[in-house]
């Protein structure tokens, strides 16, 4: 076949194809921005707003306001049974208290399971004389979880503080999914006198995001909503402004969680602002 003729046909074909594609692009909806970004001026506004409201900002302000969708989660069946075995071993008798709590006990240690699936382990181990640092206590906490198969790679340290005069340390690890913290899915560990005294676990499994994306509000808008609220957070020092997922405590098997902006204080209290519609999801939560 004549090469020149073939080229003509191909030129014509691609010209028509490009016309068709251009037409589709032209008449299709204008692409939305993949997200919005705060300018330096906006970041300054955030600082001014918080200062005017009496807060001290000690956290970076996220610039990005991406498009996000709801996150599907579910409670793993039999999770609490497995946790009881991990903490206390096999063959543990259970007793049910009046509030719907199920309590398992063995050799002084106990595990309490709430109706919503939260599991609380309390240790009866004797106190040791310990002058461990916060970092050493953290390592102890993580080691404790790892030894019992409770440590997951998706956990990240979210909050810690020293409690009481004896230097007890409290750590909160939060579950993450695709880099987003699930603020409601946590592992909390209390280390006292060289021993893990208490572990509280509330964990969900993630099923993936829903297909419909929505542009979330920016950190600036979230802070504007936050400062308009009646004084809901006792802490005056803001240590975290971040985007993640939040859910209230439902007696449910599976549900969807919503993106939120969390504004957290130095004492661990936080306000969660729905990143879709700016509603305060719940006020102070520790």
């Amino acid at each position, binding site marked *: 076949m004549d*090469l*020149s003729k073939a*080229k*003509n046909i*191909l*030129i014509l074909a*691609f*010209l028509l*194809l*490009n016309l068709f*594609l*251009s037409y*589709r*692009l032209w008449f*299709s*909806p*204008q*692409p*939305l921005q993949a997200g919005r970004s705060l300018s330096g001026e906006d970041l300054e506004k955030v600082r001014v707003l918080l200062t005017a409201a009496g807060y001290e900002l000690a956290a970076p302000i996220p610039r990005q306001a991406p*498009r996000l*969708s*709801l996150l599907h989660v579910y409670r793993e069946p039999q999770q609490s049974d497995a946790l009881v075995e991990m903490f206390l071993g096999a063959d543990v008798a259970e007793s049910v208290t009046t509030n719907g709590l199920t309590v398992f006990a063995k050799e002084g240690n106990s595990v309490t399971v709430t109706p919503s699936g939260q599991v609380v382990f309390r240790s009866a181990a004797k106190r040791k004389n310990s002058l461990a640092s916060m970092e050493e206590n953290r390592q102890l906490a993580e080691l404790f979880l790892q030894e019992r198969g409770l440590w997951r790679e998706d956990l990240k340290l979210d909050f810690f503080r020293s409690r009481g005069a004896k230097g007890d340390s409290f750590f909160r690890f939060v579950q993450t999914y695709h880099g987003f913290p699930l603020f409601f899915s946590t592992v909390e560990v209390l280390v006292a006198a060289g021993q893990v005294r208490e572990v509280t676990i509330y964990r969900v499994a993630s099923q993936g995001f*829903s*297909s*419909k*994306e*929505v542009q979330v509000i920016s950190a600036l808008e979230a802070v504007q909503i936050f400062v308009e609220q009646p004084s809901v957070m006792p802490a005056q020092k803001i240590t975290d402004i971040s985007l993640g997922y939040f859910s209230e405590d*439902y*007696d*449910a*098997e*599976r*549900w*969807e*969680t*919503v993106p939120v902006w969390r504004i957290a204080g130095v004492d661990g209290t936080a306000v969660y602002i*729905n990143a*879709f*519609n700016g*509603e305060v*999801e719940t006020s102070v939560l520790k």
Partner: protein
Amino acid sequence: MRERVKTGLLLLLVGISIILTGRLLFGQPALETALPPAYERLTFGELRPPTEQLVPRLRLGAEDAWWVLEPWDEGQSTAWALLLELIHAGKPPEGAAPPHKMTGTAAHAFFAMPVKARLWLSASLPAELRVAEVAWFAQEPLKIWFKDHQGSWLTSELSLLPDGWEEQFMNAFAGGVRHRLWSAAEWEPLVVDGEDKILIPEDLPYLAPFSIRSEMLDTEKLLRSIFINQAMVRRIEERDGAVIYTDGQRGLRLFPSGQIGYTSPKSEPGQEAMELGQALRRAAQYLQFMGGWPVHLWVDPFSAAQNLPGSHLQGQVETISLVSVQEGMRLLAAEPAVKLLFSDRGVIDYKRQIVLLDSPLGAERALIDPRQAVQSVAEYLKAETTVGRLIQVYPAYYVGHGTAQPAWVFLFKHGQTVFVQGHTGQILASN
């Protein structure tokens, strides 16, 4: 040279097509996220106008024998239209003494809640008059009596009674149920005020128990009607089988039993008081968006205490409860079929559990004489510290445990209610 240009052009076109294809495939969000959510006006059924919401209960008779037409009875609309004809022809009303001395045949129209006269009665009536009862007495046929919401009476003079009016009016009651007035002594040891006329059907009703089924609403439509942007709505599957939908501002809970619960705390408190007509129109609009107002749902004249107006709680909040009437009987349960709490800012709380009579569970039998149940009701209420006086006794279906049981309803002042099984006299429940 020409071939080189062609080659270059071809490569350029191939490159452009790759870029355009890439933009089409990856450069655009899905259509549903790119487009602003389209607001589709979804409604359920027709809008129920206020005049069809507040239909009075009619009574015609004398002494202790009365014909009663409930709002849903055949002939009620004819009788009410005839009474309205007189009202419209009347002169502006004037204050009067209560018609206690009137004897002979009388007709009464009782509203579930005091109606603003101008809403639909007559333009000649004072704008502020709220009518609880309309009365006509054969002894003075050229007068119409109005009892306002505070218990004061007014009369309106007529110049002439339309030709054949009285006969037509009497005939309209042929479809009603003949009742007898029982004296207070017959209800002892329950306390009855002489003012409260307790009328019982002269022929005891024949009823059969029924199996029931729940109303099946199009929940997808309901969701789209309530939540404009579905992308923001979370779905929560509760362990008891209920499913919650919420966008953080409003929550819709769908129970496996068919019950619907909706809350929107942001609509509370209301900012402006609504007059009755406005409130009724608002209620009808809300219901049209949230499942509709089927023809068998009525504002129950016997549940007036639960309804607007006068139910202004904190910050101008209105309540309206609806009862389902099937086979000529009210279907009553622990909760009304529909209960709507709303303000001028929107619906605050909405509960809907409408059941439908399915098939009879046995043959129709006459209900027992309600006097046979008086003792057991009195016994049942013995433990109650405050029992109001008995104000109504009427037949109905009591809905519970998957069936609709024929029942006698003993209604006491302040809304206390005792349900008695209509065939056995056993206490079924109380509210």
